[in-house]
C-alpha cells in the first residue's frame, strides 16, 4: 500500500505527471473572476467563499481521469488487481494520492488567493478549514467516478457529468462554512455536515469504487 502511494506520488512529480496542474488552474480561475466581475470590492467579498470553493472543485475535477486511466492504459491496473493488495485498498490509496497531489496544494493556496477576491478577515481560517475537510471527499467521490469510466476512450467528459452532481452536497456545506465564517456567523452545523460527508464517503465509497473497477477490468 505504501509502495503504491510512494509510486503514485513519485509519478505525479515527474515530468508529465500533472502535479501542480490543478493548482495552476485554481490560480487562473480565481484571478479571472475579479476581471469578470469588475472592481466592486464589496461584491467580491460576498462571492469570494463560493468562487474559491467552485474553483477548488473544478481544479480537483481536472486531474480525476488520470487516477486510473494511466494505469489502465499501460496494463498496471490488471497487474495490481492480481497483486496481494485488496482492491478497496488500491482505490483508497489512489484517492489519497490524488488528494495529496491536488487537494492539499489547493487547501494551502486558497487563503493566499482569498486576498485576490477581498475575502473578509475571519473567512481565511474557515475557508482553510472547510477546504481541508471537504477536499478529501472530492477526491474520494472523484475516484469513484474515475473507476466508473476507466477503459472508456475520452471518458473524461462523461466522468465530469457523473461526478459533478455528486459534488453538490460537499459544495453546499463547504461553501456554507466559508461564507458563514467570513460573515462571522456560527459555523457548527455546516461544519459537522461537511465532516460527516467526508468521513462517510471515505468509509463507504471505496467499496463501490472497487466493485465497479472489478467489473470494468473484465
Amino acid at each position, binding site marked *: 500500500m505504501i509502495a503504491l502511494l510512494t*509510486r503514485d506520488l513519485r509519478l505525479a512529480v515527474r515530468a508529465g505527471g500533472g502535479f501542480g496542474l490543478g493548482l495552476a488552474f485554481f490560480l487562473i480561475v480565481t484571478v479571472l473572476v475579479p476581471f469578470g466581475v469588475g472592481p466592486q470590492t464589496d461584491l467580491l467579498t460576498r462571492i469570494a467563499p463560493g468562487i474559491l470553493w467552485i474553483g477548488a472543485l473544478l481544479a480537483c475535477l481536472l486531474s480525476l481521469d488520470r487516477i486510473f486511466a494511466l494505469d489502465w*492504459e*499501460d496494463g498496471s491496473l490488471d497487474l495490481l488487481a492480481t497483486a496481494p493488495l485488496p482492491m478497496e485498498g488500491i482505490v483508497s490509496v489512489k484517492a489519497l494520492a490524488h488528494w495529496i497531489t491536488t487537494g492539499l496544494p489547493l487547501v494551502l493556496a486558497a487563503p493566499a488567493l482569498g486576498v485576490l477576491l477581498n475575502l473578509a478577515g475571519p473567512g481565511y481560517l474557515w475557508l482553510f478549514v472547510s477546504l481541508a475537510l471537504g477536499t478529501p471527499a472530492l477526491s474520494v467521490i472523484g475516484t469513484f467516478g474515475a473507476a466508473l469510466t476507466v477503459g472508456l476512450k475520452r471518458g473524461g467528459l462523461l466522468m465530469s457529468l457523473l461526478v459533478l452532481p455528486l459534488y453538490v452536497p460537499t459544495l453546499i456545506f463547504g461553501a456554507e462554512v466559508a461564507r458563514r465564517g467570513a460573515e462571522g456567523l456560527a459555523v457548527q452545523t455546516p461544519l459537522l455536515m461537511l465532516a460527516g460527508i467526508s468521513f462517510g464517503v471515505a468509509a463507504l465509497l471505496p467499496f463501490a469504487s472497487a466493485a465497479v473497477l472489478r467489473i470494468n477490468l473484465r
Partner: protein
Amino acid sequence: MELTASDLTVARGGVPVLDGVSFALAPGRALVLRGPNGAGKTTLLRTVAGLQPALAGEVSGAGERITYAGHADGLKSMLSVGENLHFWARVFGTEGIGTALSAFNLETLEDRLAGTLSAGQKRRLGLARLMVTGRPVWVLDEPTVSLDTASVALFAEAVRAHLGQGGSALMATHIDLGIPEADDFDVTPYRAQPRAALQDEAFL
C-alpha cells in the same frame, strides 16, 4: 499444489468463447496453450488469473498463487528499470531484484527510465517482474512478443529455472520455446458453439 480447471466456460463480452475446458498443471510443469487468433486463449488466461469470472466451471489453486503478465507490460515510463522492479517487489512483499535483473540481462539498464527502453527491453523488464513477485504460478499471455532469439532463450531459461524450483507456468504462445517440461494444450476443440439463447434479448 496443482492448478486445475474443471469444465470451465469462459466468455468475452458476454459471448462464450471456450466451453468445457479442463486441465491440471502440476508443480514443475508448464502448459502451453495453442490455438489460432481469437480462439479464446487470452480470455482463458484472464479467467484463470481471476480478472474475470467464469460462466461455468471452476479454477482451483490459483487466486493468491498466480502472477499474471498480459499483452501490456505494466511499466511506468517515468520510473527507472530498478524503480519499476522495486515497486512490484514491495507490492508482493519480496526482497531483492538482483536475480531478476541478471536473469533478463538488464543490469546495465537499471538506471534507465523505462520509457526510453526499446520494445524488446520493455518486454524483458515486464518478464523480470514475474521473478520478483515470488508467486509459484506464472500465467503468461504471449510472453515472447517483440523478443529476439537471444531474449527468447533467456526467457526459456528463466521459465525452466522457475519450474525447477517447483513453480509452474501456464502460457499462450505461438512459438516453440524448447522447454522439455512443457505440454501443449490445444484449445481449438473446446471452442464454444454460438448460442443465441444465452443472451436474454427480450430484456434489452
